[in-house]
């Protein structure tokens, strides 16, 4: 079925393409940035003694890829899965939009940098937290630009569990009907607050659902920043596009990977040391 649909593309992770990207100097740079961002997430979360770490590690590559493409003065990035804001704050720090002090004020008393993103932070246009609104915001932004014939990209990053929310599907329908030129990245880590998505509320077949709603659909390794960037950047295609980023919650820290409890837990000192060691060993 996948092969039969012209709208569904499984992005080629072939060695030759990877090699070409590496030769162009793109992939190592992004991979290094992603590894650094994972380190920042671990450092800041450990210092703040706050959880949601696995959700952040899951989207690090998408954040790095997307922020490498967008000009946040003109373009809009919406983190619909707001509970992973730490990964976004780290990305904004890497991009020079917020300071190191800002980043390390995460979850401190009176800080603007909490568990969820706030629209008064530079580079953040929408406050999120309650799930299911990011794609509707994106649809409104895209519609405004269509009406005003104004330039600018709009990318929203959603969790797969946000597809449980009916409001997300309302926005999917609307964007498909109006052929809005936006990009949705779905962090398909297969995990949600109380279990695996397939046991809570099965989303599959996911790609086919988007195709049925009139969206261009890419399936891609969600831990391959170069491939993710290629999908986000693909301006040759019009209308709404979804990037189904196949990810592992907690990616990069083996003891967290795919484990539901890391949706919540903060790090102990021993775990912090172990996490940092794993990330150092994985430097590309």
């Amino acid at each position, binding site marked *: 079925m996948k092969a039969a649909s012209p709208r569904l593309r499984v992005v080629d992770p072939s060695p030759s393409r990877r090699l070409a990207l590496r030769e162009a100097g793109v992939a190592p740079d992004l991979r290094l940035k992603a590894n650094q961002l994972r380190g920042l997430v671990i450092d800041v979360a450990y210092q703040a003694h706050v959880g949601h770490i696995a959700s952040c590690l899951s989207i690090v590559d998408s954040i790095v890829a997307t922020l490498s493409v967008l000009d946040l003065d003109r373009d809009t990035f919406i983190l619909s899965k707001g509970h992973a804001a730490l990964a976004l704050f780290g990305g904004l720090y890497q991009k020079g939009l917020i300071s190191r002090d800002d980043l390390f004020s995460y979850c401190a008393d009176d800080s603007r940098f909490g568990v969820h993103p706030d*629209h008064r932070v530079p580079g953040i*246009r*929408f*406050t*999120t*937290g*309650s799930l299911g*609104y990011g794609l*509707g*915001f*994106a*649809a*409104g*932004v*895209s*519609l*405004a*630009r269509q*009406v*005003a014939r*104004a330039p600018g990209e709009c990318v929203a990053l959603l969790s797969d569990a946000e597809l449980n929310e009916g*409001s997300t599907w*309302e*926005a999917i*329908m*609307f964007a498909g009907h*109006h052929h809005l030129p936006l990009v949705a990245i779905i962090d398909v880590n297969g995990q949600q607050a109380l279990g695996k998505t397939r046991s809570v509320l099965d989303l599959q077949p996911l790609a086919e659902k988007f195709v049925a709603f009139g969206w261009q659909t890419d399936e891609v390794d969600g831990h391959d920043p170069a491939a993710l960037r290629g999908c986000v950047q693909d301006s040759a295609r019009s209308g709404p596009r979804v990037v189904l980023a196949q990810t592992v919650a907690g990616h990069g820290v083996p003891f967290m990977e795919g484990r539901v409890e890391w949706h919540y837990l903060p790090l102990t000192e021993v775990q912090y040391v172990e996490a940092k060691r794993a990330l150092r060993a994985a430097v590309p």
Partner: protein
Amino acid sequence: MRDEFIATLVSLAEADQRVILLTADLGFSVLEPFAERFPERYFNVGVAESNMVTIATGLAREGMLPFCYSIAAFVTMRCFEAFRDGPVLHDLPVRLVGVGGGVGYGVSGITHFAIEDLALMRSSGRVAIYAPPTSSACGPILRSSYLNDGPVYYRLGKDPIEDPRLDLVSLTNAGYCKLGNHGVAIVTYGRMASAALEAAQALAERARIAVQCVVISHLSSEVVRAALEPLADCEDIVTLEDHSVSGGIGSMVAEYLATLPKHPRLHRLGLGSDVWSGLGGSERRVLARNGLAPPEIAEFVRRLAQGERSLCSSA
């Protein structure tokens, strides 16, 4: 009321390219003047009120002035979190236009009654709320408020209604108008204003009882305070609304009066348990069943004025 509102919106949209009208698939024979004049700025989002408000948030973030049209019950209750986490939180100029505030959709029943909308809309203190009392008040009130920086809720009646006794200039500029100078005070808004005036006229003509009516069009605590300050020496204040007695004007007046060292006694008339009974009927019938038709209002005030201090309101 709806027609006047949309006619004014069309004229505003002529001059202001930012005005966009969204509907959640309602407004047959009402929205056509806008849709035909500005097809590129008119969007029927389908039966998806929450999505309408979220999209409007994105539109407003990009500098547009979106108006979200639906039945008052749907555009306030179905969308409440979307409105709160969208335009209210981001302080954006999204306008909710709710038609049939109160029990305007009488025969449609409780699912179509907006009787908690004011309670919801005023609870954050960040939403400007307007309830025009007549059809002809819609235009001036919309014109004077449409450039408001933040979110706005317009509570409209469903059917046309006129009352030449109301002072449009005052309603538009001060947010309220007052008729009469002494006697029991009735404080009201929206389509109940003409019922209050009718009751007051009947009392004056048939029982020689003076009533002063305060009609509020901009439902803010500041306007309520300004409107009530001259009533501090009054013995009794009756609030009258086609809304639950909790959370609407009755509560707003109570909140103000409670700050005074000595204040008039308050009687709240509004919609009570009857609306949950499943009994049907026209708007007029539902209001009458809840003691909110002019004869019932007049009888309540007559007994108050004649010293029956033990009266209890429908609260």
